[in-house]
Structures are given as structure tokens and as C-alpha cells.
């Protein structure tokens, strides 16, 4: 069978790619997608741990994470729409209200 460490390695790589995408991208929607990538990396780690320890609790926790991610996506996208309606843009470098 495939060793569990492979799945952990993939999860680490996905998390690092999510961080890179979050900082390199400059529009809010794609940055939000990068957060989803990081959440999925955590899901993969949970499921591989559930497989390694022979317990189903990890899978239940992933179930909850997916629910929270759905709620988070609804709220986050509503906020992005609100920002777009007020500022007419979603580029992050246009938001400099706090720059003084």
C-alpha cells in the first residue's frame, strides 16, 4: 500500500503552495481561493492521519471542516461583493485607506 508519509508530503506541498499563492496574487477572489487550498491541505492531513491511526474521528473532523469552509466561503464572498460595490475594484493595492 502507499505509505501515509506520501500523503503528508503532498499535504505540506499544497499548504506551501497556498501560502505562496496568497501572497503573490493581487485580487481578493484568487487570494480567497488560496485560503481554500490551504484548508484542503489540512483536510488531506486529517484524513491520512485517520488512515494511519485506524480511527474514524479524523474523517468526522474533515466533515466539519468542509461545513465551516462552505459557511466561510458564503460570508467571504458576500464581503468581497460588498467591497466591490463600494470601491468598484477588487485589486488589493487599491485599498490603502489605512496607509495614511
Amino acid at each position: 500500500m502507499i505509505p501515509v508519509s506520501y500523503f503528508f508530503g503532498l499535504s505540506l506541498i499544497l499548504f506551501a503552495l497556498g501560502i505562496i499563492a496568497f501572497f503573490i496574487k493581487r485580487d481578493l477572489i484568487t487570494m480567497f481561493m488560496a485560503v481554500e487550498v490551504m484548508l484542503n491541505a489540512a483536510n488531506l492531513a486529517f484524513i491520512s492521519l485517520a488512515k494511519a491511526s485506524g480511527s474514524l474521528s479524523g474523517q468526522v473532523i474533515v466533515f466539519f471542516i468542509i461545513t465551516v469552509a462552505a459557511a466561510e466561503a458564503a460570508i467571504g464572498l458576500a464581503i468581497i461583493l460588498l467591497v466591490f460595490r463600494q470601491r468598484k475594484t477588487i485589486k488589493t493595492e487599491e485599498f490603502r485607506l489605512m496607509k495614511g
Partner: protein
Amino acid sequence: MGTFLFFLLALLCVGSVIGMIISRNQAHNALLLVLSFASLGGLFGLLDAPFIAAVQIIIYAGAIMVLFIFVIMMVNLKEGIRPERKIWTIRLSAGLAVFFLVELGLAVKGTLASLRVEAGPAIGSPTDLGRLLFTDYLYAFEITSLLIIAALVGAIVLVKKKKDEG
């Protein structure tokens, strides 16, 4: 066979996330992310979690990404945004990524070292998961319903236009 499938799905997943970093088109980004989530669903299937794999594909690749695509349609950027060219941002992100990679790698190494129990097979069939959900995790499950109600009401209140705004 299993190993081949793992490497195929892993390559698909990582490749589509890298494509998301490179591509400037938001709609392409969303579709690449769908591909990445679908291949992750396949990986969950390889890890004996068929129910979570189905949930991943239906909710993540289906519902959440459709939500993203709706918002992309409403926001409608005319031309794509170039990726960040400032050198310090790239350095910062690469540094942070390497930092987290090392830190999480050490944590994972410790976890794997302490995990020497060869447990029996735990296949996450919907029956077993449902039983666990309604016994051990009952409170968390009920609180999740509150969370979803709050998110629903919050999203509607946030996006609703006031009467005088038209």
C-alpha cells in the same frame, strides 16, 4: 496500481495549483481549483474515505466553486491582474512557505514517529460516519447547524441592498 494512481492524482493536484498561481484569468483559476479539488477527492478515496471523497467533490468542487464562479461573474474584471512583481513580496512569500514547510515537516515527522500502532482498517462508510456523528460528535453537529444559520443570515444581510439605494 495504487501508487501510480496516487502519483497521477498528486501531480494533477499540485500542477493545477501551480497553474492557478501562474494564470491571470480568474475564471481559469476557479476551474483549475475545481480540478485540484476533484483530484483531492480521488486521493481521499485512496485513503479509504469514500464518503468524504463524495462530499469533497459534491460540496467543494460543486457548491463552493460554483459560488466562486458566480462572484467572478458579478465582479467581472475586464483584464486580468498581473501577478505581484514586487521582489520583496515574492521573497516574503517564499520565505514564509519554506518556514511553514520546515515547521510542519518537523511536526509531521514527530507524529509519524509516534504513530507506530498498526491499527485495523477503518473504512469510512456512511453508516459508520453517521453513527459517530450522532453519538460522539452530537454537540458539534448541532452547533454546526447554528453556524450555517448564522452564515446564511449574515450573507443575506451583507449583500442586501437598502431600499433607498435602489
